[in-house]
């Protein structure tokens, strides 16, 4: 269980970064840290001790135990989505930097939620 708790701590570190940082790039980095922790969580869930990687080298020996392939599939999907998120946020960050000359979110503050 220690591993899962540590994983959750990593997630919370990411949340903390997003909420307290004022630098656009730091916010993006915090988001990626959150992504990493979620991926790790999924793969941890699917691990079976003694299991092999889900690639069958010898088709005849089909009774070998492999780790759960489904969470790995999910992580594969989520990782590509994460890259899409990162590239979009970074494109916005570069635009905002050119408009304001800073990455500081307190200076980029024309709108008030």
């Amino acid at each position, binding site marked *: 269980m220690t591993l899962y*708790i540590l994983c959750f701590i990593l997630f919370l570190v990411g949340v903390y970064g997003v909420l307290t940082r004022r630098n656009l790039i730091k916010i993006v980095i915090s988001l990626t840290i959150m992504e990493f922790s979620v991926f790790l969580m999924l793969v941890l869930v699917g691990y079976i001790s003694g299991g092999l990687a889900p690639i069958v080298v010898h088709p005849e020996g089909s009774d070998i135990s492999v780790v759960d392939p489904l969470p790995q599939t999910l992580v594969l999907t989520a990782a590509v989505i994460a890259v899409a998120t990162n590239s979009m946020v970074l*494109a916005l960050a570069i635009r905002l930097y050119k408009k304001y000359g800073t990455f500081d979110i307190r200076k980029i503050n024309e709108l008030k939620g």
Partner: protein
Amino acid sequence: MENLLIIILVLMIIAALAAIHAKDLISAVIAQGFVGYGLVICFFLLKAPELALVQIVLETVTLIIILAVIYDSSMKEIGEPIGKRDIVTYSLSFVLVALFLYYFNKAIVGLNPFGEHTLRMSEMYVKEVLELTGSANLVKGVLWDFRGLDTLGEATVLFTAAMSVLVILRISGKKHQLTKK
């Protein structure tokens, strides 16, 4: 095995904190890379070579894009004087973290401990993907057959991201018209 993973995870957490609190952006990016490559090692240890390979290339590309973005900017982290509002934010976030951890700890009692996962949905994947789809790589078999719609959706997300980047990086949004300002 479990202890090794714990050590790597603790290091990743430290690196994550370092990335968040780094004084300049380059060190933040490098610390973030440390977290990412730590994740790659974890994937290898957890028997997910597929993910390790994908993660290592995607992490590299992300680092390149971040570096391209911050390349000719002032890379200094903004000095942050701790005001009254910040103290409130910090203390609030620590209380929240403690609360969440406490409840998470309670919520996961009785779930399968690490390494003792049982198969339900994927039991059939493990047993029969090989005969049904003929793909030796089970992850790919699941990815493109049983969960093909997810994968198509993910490719669509990537397509959306490309379109969005092209939209966001247009120089001007509106055509210049004389009748409008």
